[in-house]
Structures are given as structure tokens and as C-alpha cells.
């Protein structure tokens, strides 16, 4: 199935929002058709949404490779975890997926390619801006803007030129509901986001990312700066969100990987060691290094 009709359906959904005063919660009615299609496909051999082929990546114009020979496919509609010891390249790979590494002057893809929805994202005519609109990202350190909660959630829409207050309000409400923050903040949408607790701020960041309705959400250790309770809320949220989005999460916390993800990829020293269903990686890894790592012998 091509993506074009899905996009159409999505824009129709937006129109529907205009008509429906209270948009249905995604849990009850799959609002977006991608989710529906994921639902049907997810059970079978998941169709891969991201294809990484023999990727090599360097931070210093190719002198040393931070990532080597990464070949990996990430299925649609699932949560995939990247695990591995510090410096193994998992965050780097994540940032390759929406070309955030472009912001670093000397970063360079040395070989291989990444295809998202079938499109090589490093092709000359690909606009990283357009890519990032579809591949959202949540960062390790929650970074809401020092604006109101509403403005934070609406930021992405505003960037894309949405001016209508009504559309914005609805999108914000939906995003906040999806990120399970609505009930906590609905009475103070206009107060500063910096007044929220850490966990709330991170959930606001997630809301900000999903407000523009990306296909994919990349999460770079989203809980590392949070306390255990807030972490639990985020994990719950991730579980909810996977209904609608493809999520790739980098985590240090192996329990977190087992709790939230369907598939896990283990990286070590810039190479992909093993990838597979989370239960297999943690229960019965096929590689020695993986076993050593998941059993806490190093890392």
C-alpha cells in the first residue's frame, strides 16, 4: 500500500476534526487510517517502514567511523528499542533517521543508505525539513520552550504555517490527550511550560512532537532525566502511542526496553550486533556480546 492514499485520509481526518467538536480518542476509534492498516499488518511479518542498508557514519568527515555496516529494518507500528553501552552509536543512528546530524558541520554518511517509506532520505532532492516533519523526535533532556503549554504544543503546527486558532486548538488538545497530559494541564494551557514537573515537561515534548502527526517518533533516552514514577508514565504513554505511530526508542534501561518494545536492536562499538524480537534478545540472545550485555556483565 502506498502512502499517498494514507496522506489523503489523514488530511480528510483533519477536515473531520473541524466538523467533530470532540475528536474521538485513538484508543476507542482508530482515528488515523495508518494505525488501522498497521493493526492489520502488524500481526503478520511487519512491513518495514525504515530500511537501513549497510550504513556507515562519521562525525569527522570520514576519518573515523562512528557507525559501521548497519543494516536494519524497522517495522511499522511497533516500538523498536536501541540498546547498548554508552558510545555504541545508538543515539547517532537515531539522529541519522531524521537527519538531525546535518546540524553538525563535520558529520557525514560515509556509505550505505537509509530508506524511509521507500525513499532514500539522503537523496539530493530530499528536503530534511520535510523529512523531519514526518519523523518527530523527543530528546533526552526535556526541552520545552519557555512559552505557554499551548504554544509549546502548537509550535510545530505554527511552523508549518497553520494560522487558524481553531485548528491549532484542536490539534493541541488532541496531542495533549494522546500524550496523556490533557487532564493535568487543560486548565492552565496558557501558563508557562517551565512550571510543569519534569515528567510533565517531557510528556509535553512528546505532545509537541505528535501534534504535527508524524509517521515515526524517535525517542532519545526520553526517561533518563526523570524519576521512576515519571518514567512509568512515559512508558505507559509509549505503549499507548504505538497504536498510532512507529516508535524508535534509545534506552539505557534494559527493563524499559523489555517493557515497551516489541523489537530490540543491540549495538556495540558502532556496529549492530543483533536485532530481533525483544523477548528473544533478552531471553535467548544468539550472540555472546548481547548476552553479556543484557545480563549486566558489562555496560
Amino acid at each position: 500500500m502506498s502512502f499517498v492514499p494514507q496522506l489523503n485520509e489523514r488530511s480528510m481526518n483533519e477536515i473531520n476534526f473541524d466538523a467533530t467538536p470532540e475528536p474521538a480518542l485513538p484508543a476507542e476509534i482508530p482515528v488515523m487510517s495508518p494505525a488501522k492498516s498497521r493493526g492489520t499488518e502488524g500481526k503478520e511479518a511487519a512491513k518495514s517502514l525504515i530500511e537501513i542498508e549497510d550504513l556507515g557514519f562519521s562525525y569527522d568527515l570520514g576519518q573515523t567511523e562512528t557507525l559501521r555496516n548497519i543494516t536494519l529494518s524497522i517495522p511499522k507500528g511497533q516500538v523498536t528499542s536501541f540498546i547498548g553501552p554508552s558510545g555504541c552509536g545508538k543515539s547517532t543512528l537515531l539522529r541519522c533517521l531524521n537527519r538531525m546530524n546535518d546540524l553538525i558541520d563535520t558529520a557525514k554518511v560515509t556509505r550505505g543508505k537509509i530508506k524511509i517509506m521507500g525513499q532514500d532520505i539522503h537523496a539530493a532532492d530530499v528536503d530534511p525539513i520535510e523529512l523531519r516533519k514526518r519523523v518527530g523526535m523527543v530528546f533526552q533532556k526535556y526541552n520545552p520552550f519557555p512559552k505557554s503549554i499551548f504554544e509549546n504544543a502548537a509550535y510545530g503546527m505554527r511552523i508549518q504555517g497553520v494560522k487558524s486558532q481553531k485548528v491549532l486548538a484542536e490539534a493541541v488538545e488532541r496531542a495533549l490527550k494522546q500524550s496523556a497530559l490533557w487532564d493535568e494541564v487543560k486548565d492552565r494551557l496558557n501558563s508557562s511550560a517551565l512550571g510543569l514537573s519534569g515528567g510533565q515537561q517531557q510528556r509535553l515534548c512528546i505532545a509537541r512532537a505528535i501534534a504535527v502527526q508524524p509517521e515515526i517518533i524517535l525517542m532519545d533516552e526520553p526517561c533518563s532525566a526523570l524519576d521512576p514514577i515519571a518514567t512509568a508514565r512515559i512508558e505507559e504513554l509509549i505503549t499507548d502511542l504505538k497504536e498510532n505511530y512507529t516508535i524508535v526508542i534509545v534506552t539505557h534501561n534494559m527493563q524499559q526496553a523489555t517493557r515497551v518494545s516489541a523489537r530490540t536492536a543491540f549495538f556495540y562499538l558502532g556496529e549492530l550486533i543483533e536485532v530481533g524480537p525483544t523477548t528473544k534478545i533478552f531471553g535467548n540472545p544468539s550472540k555472546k556480546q548481547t548476552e553479556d550485555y543484557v545480563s549486566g556483565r558489562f555496560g
Partner: protein
Amino acid sequence: MAKQFEKRDRRFLGIGVQSAIKGFFGGNALLSIAILLLICVFLGKEAFLFFPDHHKGLQLYRKSGQEYVDGMKRQVEDHADLNSLMAQAYFAEKADIAGREWGVVDAFGYLVDLAEDEGEDEIDAWADAREELEDAEEDAEVKRAESEARAAWGEKLGEILAKADRAEADRFGRLEAGEWERLKASMAEWDPVEEEPPAFVVQAEKDLKAKMGTFEAARNAFAAAVGPLNDLKETLRGKAMVVKEEAEADLTAVARKKALVEGAAASTNSEDRQRRLDEAAAIVIREKFPFAERTEVFYESKPEHARLAAEYLVALKAAMELVPRAPGSKEAEARLTQIRSELPDVLQDFSRNSVMVQEWRHDKPYGWWRSISAFFFGKDWVTNSSWHDFFGLLPLFTGSLLISVIALMVAVPFAVSAAIYVNQLARRWEQTIIKPAIEFVQAIPSVVLGFFGIMVLGTFLRELSQVEALSWVPGFPMAERLNILNAGLLLGLMAVPTIFTLCEDALNNVPRAFGEASLALGASKLQTVWRVIAPAAASGILAAVLLGFGRVIGETMVVLLVAGNKIAIPDFSEGIGVITQPAHTMTGIIAQETGEVDKGSLHWRALFMVGLILFVISLFLNWTAQRIIHRFRIA
């Protein structure tokens, strides 16, 4: 399948909006480079056009014979320096050994002036009456009138004497007790018509002559020694001036003629047209100015100069013989010793100048190197002169340098100490007060500091320097209120914040571990600062001092207002006391003269050249400071 993530960047003329925005910002950044280059170009252009013009000017200076005359002028001027020392010695001696007599003569002079001034009518009346009396001696009427006039004068004299101010008459307090009264009493003898001094004064004059006669003769002989040479110089000077003016007029002759002819053509008034045409016809256009012919007079005067120079040496020697060996006054003795010690140098200069004069040839080519060094090492900056403009950097550079050095000597200890104190020793609340306070100091406008220097500091320093107990300080008492020291102190205050801030940064950059390691070994806080932290920050502190130096040498308003603006190399003979003299500076001269100079003139270009030198100095200091910081940065 439609392409994903396709570029949506709007483009205009093939340039993306994003790259256009980036280009805009980059262009602004480029501006700073462009400005720096433009400064180089604009200053450089004017400045480097300076040298050819300057060279030409100096060539004309030689060709017109001005150089020849200036050779003699230097001889005369050197003598004048000695002569003023001689005069000082003479007056010191006079005051010391014949003070009373001098006082009497002076006071008498004052009284005469006063009487002639105030009693003018009476004196005239009496004079007239006496004249009439001479013609008609027997006429009783006339006789009576004469005696009336005399009485009137006598009365007036009494009035005048009552009014006479002793302090004014005897300003130096030379009169002895009772002499003022005696002098006033003797004034009755004074005949205002014949102007015969009273016997009392005559006696004083006689005594004065007896005591000072030889010295006076020596002094007069000394002063007169250079007379003939000076006369020759003056005659030739006028001639050289004419040659120069004509030669300069020749340079513009073609242009002037053309302008006059054009003006005549445009003129509607026939009279005016004729006048212009006549004027134009009067302008002779010569292929080449006949310097050889016009300077013949100088060649002809060479033998005379040689003769006069020889005579001068003889006369000088004779005059020195006349000078008393053992003068009564210490001051006079000191001056005479000074003359004797300077004499060999002066004579050496004299013979060197003689050689120069004798060897002068108008057609000797003027070397490029000489004209360039005449700018960089020239000792005179003389402009707007009818004779010849000299553009010598040395007096300005010396002034700038002296003032900057003093400023740094004041500022560095204070600024570095303050930085160490604030960074290492002060309590927290002190830091939060002192740092902004010092920034406040930085914000004081320089013209305000200059004003303070004129109004307060100058007066204070001069009064301080006149305190008896401080007379041992070199240069005290200071003659000028506005001088190097005053400017240096104010600039020092100005430099403190710059040096302080940079030093503080340097101290901040010293890793905490250094200090902690030292403290952990049992060193005291001060030892740690002194042995560990300050050395580690030394390169930063050095860079701060260099940048402070750059700030000080480039400062304009304070030196313009306070340095005294005397264009001369300060006299270093007094050692450190030189700092109490006035000076001019490179920045000051630009500020003072640029506004009043024609664009494109030699003077204008000279000022731009000075600006270029300032620019180069500041670049050099900046660059060196950056190199130091870069090189010794602690990783």
C-alpha cells in the same frame, strides 16, 4: 508512488530562500572584514601618497636654499639656548650680589613710570612753563606760572608717591629696610622734564655697575657673538623664501594661466576680461625653474659664512674668558657650569652644521630613504608655517609613548591587584559590588575625565608640586598644569577596567584544581595566589596589559585636553622629571588638526599617515595579545 520529503523550498532566481537568508547573515559578517580592509585602503591610500609629496617638498626645501639657511639657523638657535642660560646666570648673580642696588633701580623705574603716567598733565604743564620761562626769564608772570606749575607737580608727586605700591615696585623684595622710604624721599630731587635721576639712585646704579660690570660685559659679548651670523642668516632667509615661493608658483603656473584665460572668456565685463588677460599674460611659463641661477647667491655667501663662523668661535671664546671664574651666586655658578659642560657639544654641532652649510648643493639629489626617515625620525612637527612644513613623527610618538607608559605603570599594579583580589580573595558580596563598580569606571566618558584633569587634577598636582617638602621629587615644582603626568594618571584610571576585566577572565580560566591542589598541600590562600594561580594566569595577564596599552595609546580626548599639546620632544635631561612637561600625542594631533586641513594636502596626508601608524600599532598589539592567549592557553 509519489516522492517523499520532496523539497518545497521556494526559490527565486535560482537561489533558495534559506540560502538567501544565510547569505544575508554571512554578508553582514563579511562586513567586519570589509571594514577592516576599507580602513587599510582609505588610510593607506592617503598615507602612501604622503611619501612622494613629502619627498617633493623636501627636494624643494633643498633646491630653494632653505636647507642651506636652516643650517645657519640651527647654529644661531643653538647659540640662543646657551645665551638664555647665560642670561639666567647673569640675573641670578645680579640678584644675589647686587640685589639691593638692582631693587633700587627697578623701584625707581616703577616710580618713574607711575609718575609719568599719572602726572602726565602736570609734567607737561611744568615743561611748557619752563620753556616759556627760558624765553622770557624776567617776566614775573611767567615766573609765577612756572613756580605754580612746579608746585602743582610737587603736589601731584606727593599724591603719586602716596599711592605707589611697594609690592608692585619691589616685586622680588630686594629693597632693604628703610630704602623704600629713602627712595620716595629722593624722588623730590627727580626732574621729570630733564629726567635726571636723584643722587640716591645714581649711586645705586654706580654700585650696580661696579659689581656686575664684568659679567655684564661678558654677557653682552656672549650675546653679540652670533650677531653677524644671524644677520647673514636673516638676509639669506628672505632670499630663500622668495625662491621657494616663486618655484611653488611655477608649479601651478600652467593651471593658473588656464583658469585666468577661461575666466576671461566667460567674463562679460570687458574691463574685467582685460584685467584677467593681462594677469594671464604676466604669468611666465617656464619649462624648468632656474634653481641654479636663483641659488647662486647662496653659493656666493659660502665664504662669508665660513668667515663669520670662524669669527663666531673666536668671539665666543673671548666672551667665555670674560665670564667671572667665581661668581658669588650658587645659581649662577650652576648655570655657568652647565654652559661649560654643554659647550663642547654645541661647538661640535656648530662645526657639523658649518660643514653641512659649506657642502650644501641645491642639485644634490634628496634620497628616498632620507625623506622617509625624515618622517619617522624627524624631530620637528611644524605646520602652517610660511617657511617650510616639517612632518616629523618623533615628538608625537615620544609623547604618546611616555603618556602610555606612565598610564600603564599606574594602571597595571592596581588593575592586576584588584583582579586578584576580586577573583581570589574577596568575599562574595564584595565581588557583586566591585565588578559592576569597575564597569562603571569604564563607562566614564573620556571627555569627562579630560575635563576633570583640567579643572581638578591639574591644579591639585601643581599645588602639590609646589609644596616645599616635596621639592626633592624630580620635576617638581611643575611649570605646567597640563602635562604628561596628569594625562598619564587619568589614562591609567581609564585603563584599569580594561586590564581588570581581562585579568579576571585570565584568572577565571585557571582550573580550580590548581588552586585546590595547592591549598590541600597546606599553602595559605595568598601563597596559592602568588605561586600557583598568578603564574598560571601570567600569559592572560600579559595579554591584558598589551590590550590595555593599545587602549591607552589610542585614547584621544584625555590627551587632547590634558597633555598640554606642546609639539616638542620632552627634555629628558632632567631624567624622570620629564613627566612634568607638556607634550603632544599622535591621537591628539589628528584630533586637533584634521578639522582644519585641506583635503589632499600634504598636511592632511601626514595626519592620515599618523592614523595609519596608530592603526598598525593597535593591530600589532591586538594580534600579539591574541597570540599570547592562544599559545599559552591551558588546555
